[in-house]
C-alpha cells in the first residue's frame, strides 16, 4: 500500500474511466448515450491530469496561514495541471452543449437518435 500513491489510484481510475467512456462512444447507438460517453471520457482525462499534478501528501496551491510563503515550493502540489483542468472542464461543457444541440436538431430532422441512421453521406 505504501508503494501505491494517491496519484496512482486517481490515474488508474481516470484511465479506466477513459476506456469506459470510449466503450460507450463506440458501442452505444443512441446519440445521447454517445454524448454521455464523451462526457465520461473527458472526466477521465481530467482525473488523470489532476493525478499527474499531485505530489504525495502535499496541500492545495493556495498560500495562507497554513502554507508559509518561503516554504511554499515544498508544501504544495503543482498548480499548472489544475489550471489546465479548469480550462479543459469549461471547454468540455461547451463541446457537450454543442453536441447536445446537434442531437436535438438531428432528432427533429430525422425523428431518430440512432447514429446509424445518419449515413446519407458516404463513400
Amino acid at each position, binding site marked *: 500500500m505504501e*508503494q501505491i*500513491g*494517491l*496519484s*496512482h489510484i486517481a*490515474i488508474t481510475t481516470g*484511465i479506466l474511466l*477513459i*476506456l469506459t467512456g*470510449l*466503450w460507450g462512444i*463506440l*458501442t452505444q447507438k443512441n446519440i445521447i448515450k454517445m454524448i454521455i460517453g464523451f462526457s465520461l471520457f473527458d472526466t477521465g482525462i481530467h482525473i*488523470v491530469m489532476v493525478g*499527474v*499534478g*499531485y*505530489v*504525495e501528501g502535499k496541500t*492545495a*496551491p*493556495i*498560500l*495562507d496561514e497554513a502554507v508559509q*510563503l518561503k516554504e*511554499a*515550493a*515544498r508544501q*504544495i*502540489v*503543482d*498548480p*499548472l495541471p*489544475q*489550471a*489546465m483542468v*479548469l*480550462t479543459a*472542464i*469549461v*471547454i468540455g*461543457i*461547451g*463541446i457537450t*452543449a*454543442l453536441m*447536445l*444541440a*446537434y442531437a*436535438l*436538431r438531428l432528432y*427533429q*430532422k430525422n425523428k431518430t437518435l440512432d447514429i446509424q441512421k445518419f449515413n446519407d453521406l458516404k463513400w
Partner: protein
Amino acid sequence: MLKKIFTAAVIVAFAIILLKGYGFSGPDQQLNEVAERYAEKGPEEVGAANLVTAVIVTYRGLDTLGEVTILFLTASIIGFFLKTRREDLTAPPQVRKTSEILSTASRIISPIIFLFGAYVFINGHLTPGGGFQGGAIVASGLVLMLLANPLKTVNHKIISVVESISGISFVLLGVLGLVLAAGFLDNAFIGPGRFGSLISAGAIPIIYIFIGLKVGSELSGIVSNLQETQKEEI
C-alpha cells in the same frame, strides 16, 4: 458482434498505450522547475494567494481567454442554431404548473445563489474558486429560476450585453497590460496591494469579475437557449 470484439480489442490496445505512457513510476516527490518557480515567485510577481488563479489569469492568461472564447462560441452557435420562431413563442405553452414551494423558494434562493457566485469570483485570487466556478454558480441560479417559472423567458438582451461588455473588458484589460505593464494580460498595471487581502494581486480580481460575468452569461445563454428551443426555423 464481430465489431464489438474488434472494438474491445482496439480499446484494450489503447489502454495498454495509455498505461505505457503513464508508466507508474514511484510517487512524485517534488515539483518540477516550472511549478517550483510558480510557488516561489508567484506570490511576489502576481500577488495572488491562490496559485491556480495566478496561473490561470496571468501566467497562462491566453489559455483562459481562449477558453472563454470557446464558451462564447458555443453560446453563439447554439444561439443561431436553435433560433426560435416567433409564433412558437406566442403559442400557448403546455407546461406543467410548478409547485408553489419551488417558485417561492426560487424567489428567495436565486438572489442568494447569485450573490454567492459573485463572492466566489471576486475572491478567486485568495480562496478556491474564481471566475469559472462563480460563473457556473450564477448560471445555476438562473436554472433554478427557469425551473421555478418555465414560462418566464430570460431576457436575452441583458445576457448578451453582459457577455459582450465583460468580454471586451477582458480583452481591453489584457491590452492595458501590454501597454502599461510587461505584456499582454499582465495584471501588474494596478498596484499589488497587501498580499492576502481582497484588494490585492493587481488586476486579477477585476479580470476575474469579468471572467465570472462572462462565463455566467455564456452558460446562462446556452441553458436558456436550450430551454427555449422550438421547432427549427426554416
